[in-house]
């Protein structure tokens, strides 16, 4: 593959990470805790879409190699993830009324519950949406880019969702209230913002986007009960890299981490090609920069960035 090829893959994977990062960051800054169940919320979205797709199947025609039924399933995945998150907030987090650390620990338990329920119903094996895999887009193959129409659909949908979130945050009343709450929760209440309601909408949006990310992850790779949890650390890295609590930072961080993750094989090719001396150093570098360490490399880069910008890419943590 060429550099372009790796970048294209990175773009697809980044889209998924960005969708996951936004919700984690929103919930962190507005509901004030690090939600360890966020990865499993993605899984909930993916499996809800799987069930829906199983029911509606190849409904109607197709766009970008995806039957209309898949988009219906995507909407269902988003909706179920949002409903499950709101339900959890109402039934568990809100009544518990504990501090952020208490909520963090509770969310670890919630993560296990989501995953266990999925595992009981679907088993722990990998599965796929019953959609015909596509061949890479012919016109791009000469450039070393091997992406399918499905990948284009993933990136396109992510762009639409992120663009929609931007409009919501900047130009709607709800968005302004969300930014106000992230900025100064006490002053938000003093101003008359009914913060519980805004918090619920935050869960809807954050979990909905995570659900979409989960569905796309299932389409990009495959589905398994651990799919979201496995991505959680990478998403945390993205959010921290972006500047924890900043939604736009989370987008940037998600984009970078996703890119780095997919560019790792390219880096290792480069290292192989370089005339590194002495030989043991070359061997060491080659073994370190290999695909198995893709996530570790993302973390190393995160730490390196934080050494230079301790508050992350977006600076002070302003939304």
């Amino acid at each position, binding site marked *: 593959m060429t550099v372009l090829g790796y970048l294209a893959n990175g773009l697809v994977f980044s889209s998924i990470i960005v969708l996951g990062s936004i919700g984690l960051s929103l919930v962190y800054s507005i509901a004030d805790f690090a939600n360890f169940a966020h990865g499993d919320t993605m899984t909930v979205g993916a499996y809800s879409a799987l069930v829906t797709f199983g029911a509606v199947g190849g409904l109607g025609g197709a766009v970008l190699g995806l039957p209309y039924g898949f988009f219906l399933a995507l909407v269902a995945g988003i909706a179920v993830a949002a409903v499950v998150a709101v339900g959890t907030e109402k039934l568990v987090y809100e009544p518990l009324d504990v501090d952020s650390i208490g909520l963090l620990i509770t969310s670890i338990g919630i993560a296990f519950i989501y995953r266990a329920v999925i595992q009981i119903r679907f088993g722990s094996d990998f599965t796929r949406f019953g959609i015909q895999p596509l061949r890479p887009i012919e016109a791009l193959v000469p450039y070393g880019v091997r992406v399918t129409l499905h990948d284009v659909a993933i990136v396109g949908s992510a762009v639409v969702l992120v663009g929609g979130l931007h409009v919501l945050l900047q130009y709607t009343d709800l968005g302004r209230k969300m930014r*106000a709450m992230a900025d100064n929760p*006490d002053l938000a209440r003093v101003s008359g913002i009914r913060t519980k309601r805004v918090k619920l909408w935050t869960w809807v949006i954050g979990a909905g986007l995570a659900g979409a990310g989960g569905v796309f992850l299932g389409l990009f790779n495959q589905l398994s009960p651990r799919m979201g949890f496995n991505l959680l650390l990478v998403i945390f890295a993205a959010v921290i890299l972006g500047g924890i609590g900043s939604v736009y930072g989370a987008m940037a961080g998600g984009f970078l981490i996703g890119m780095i993750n997919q560019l790792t094989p390219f880096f290792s090719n480069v290292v192989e090609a370089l005339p590194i001396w002495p030989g043991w150093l070359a061997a060491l570098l080659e073994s370190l920069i290999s695909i198995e360490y893709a996530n570790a490399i993302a973390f190393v880069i995160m730490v390196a960035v934080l050494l230079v910008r301790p508050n992350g890419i977006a600076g002070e943590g302003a939304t």
Partner: protein
Amino acid sequence: MSDDTTRPAGAADGTDGVDPVLSLSNVDSGYGEVQVLDDLSIRLDPGEIVCLVGPNGAGKSTVLKTAFGMLTPWTGTVEYHGRDIGGMAPEEIVREGIGYVPQTDNVFGSLTIDENLRMGGVARDGGLEDVIETLYDRFPIIDRKRTAKAKTLSGGQRQVLAFARALVMEPDVLLIDEPSAGLAPNTADDVFEDVQEVNDMDTAILMVEQNVTKGLGISDRGYVLDQGTVRFEGTPEELLNDEEVSQLYLGG
């Protein structure tokens, strides 16, 4: 109402028969297990400016926070127009007609001036745009910076914005915590003038102020707080001329 010579003599101790717009009666309150207010009683009559003074840590901010539902009174009552509002949530108290300008962090730094004012009006039923325009007319300092982030404002401008944000609701009662803190003397004077102007439009004001002379100077009455309770109350003259008060609390 800042001209206290026009007030009846009985007004100072609040026994002139007027129903207070806001009153705290025998209130104990505090943070977690830590008690700060101890059997505290104060009242604010319609149209008044009342100033709370006292040493650092006396509990002045705690009085405002308890009145505004940021803290729930442990015992005693907080009454607004004779109705108990003790422990009502701040976001609901705003809707009753009380406004509050906190001592610190009183603007949304990452929001623009315009957005700050909009946030001040989330509980309004309508007429938001008109009120905001009126406020811009009244405070040209912030009018010139509508689309700037609030964190870029100077201390004085910030105080004006904080003040304007609370006024978007056109409250009956305004609680203001140290409006002149950290401001240069002439900027502080401007803020005091703004306070008086708002009072002239029939808003009763309960203000905490560290600058005792200026704070009491624009007030109808004052309370001296120490260790969570009222030590002295009276007209500005009474307080400023009282030997014990000035020795103990007003820096000699």
